């Protein structure tokens, strides 16, 4: 399972390298950066969104648990939960910004 996953990931990573090896050999040595940037942007956003979902799920689960135990403190818990969710979410937002820089600004050409 793990080996096939690794092979699949390596195949995906190698695909643009193979496709653009000729262009790189032809003289434009940095032609491979663009396709890799697209790949990395997609993978980075996928990992960030998935792990951010896990983290936010834990936070919300704990907050809902606490709210069910103490309904009187629900408002304060909700405020704290929203702040926590924002702080967790900002990590995924950093990755989104990096992905957008890779896709749209393209600092390395």
């Amino acid at each position, binding site marked *: 399972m793990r080996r096939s996953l690794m092979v699949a990931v390596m195949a995906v990573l190698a695909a643009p390298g193979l496709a653009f090896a000729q262009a790189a050999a032809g003289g434009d040595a940095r032609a491979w950066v663009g396709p890799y940037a697209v790949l990395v942007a997609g993978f980075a956003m996928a990992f960030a969104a998935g792990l951010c979902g896990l983290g936010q799920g834990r936070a919300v689960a704990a907050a809902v648990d606490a709210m069910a135990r103490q309904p009187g403190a629900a408002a304060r818990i909700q405020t704290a939960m929203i702040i926590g969710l924002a702080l967790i979410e900002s990590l995924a937002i950093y990755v*989104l910004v990096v992905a957008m820089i890779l896709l*749209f600004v393209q600092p390395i050409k």
Partner: protein
Amino acid sequence: MGVIEHPPIFRLPGIPDHVTYTWFVMVVLTAVAFVASRHVQLVPRGMQNFMEVVLEQIGQLIDDVMGPEGRRYLPFIATLGLFILAANLASLIPGFAGPTANLNTTAACAIIVFVAYHYIGIRKHGPITYLQHFMGPVPLLLKPLMFVIEIISHLARPLSLTLRLFGNMVGGHILLAIIFFLMGLQGLIGWAMSGSVAGAIVGGVGGLVMIVFTVGFLYPLKMLVSFLQAFIFVMLTMLYISGAIEEADHGHGAEHH
């Protein structure tokens, strides 16, 4: 952004779009404030009533978070919050550019917050005492290290404030733009109107589903995000200000980045 980018309906020559629409938001907020405070009555009606409710809510929030000292900063916090909220909501009007979907606007707001809470802290404690708070309650040997770490964490605050607001807004806009591009005249609706039978069936149904999805789900979601991000920006501003005020009493509480 190439194919999904679309210019706003109204542009001033030589002025960036986000500045134009920041002015628009400023005009709207000024007009609302003028209408609300033109005939101030003891028993408020209409716009005055509405704005009093809004400000009272923000004041309640400040009381909850910052305690009794917080009411002094109500004008600053409420102005920031109302501006960010109006700018977020303005970006949802079709054909408008969002001021907060540009890094410059959000960075301006975050730098104002950064300067403001340091100014408040220095005015409250004096520069020497305020800088001493950065070193924290640790042994003397660790104080320089602590100082550097605190400086970095304080510098990360405006960065994270900037990027959170900007990323949330731009992410939503890119999502909406891609959905519109998929269902627009070059996408499903265009396919439905092209005359082919398969296009009429698949494109028509798919376009309808996407329109319902956008209007019924994505737009309310974006409005929720607009309110939530304005709330979070204001909330973190309050936490930073109260952290700068109270550092003498409570030492270092939880760090917020």
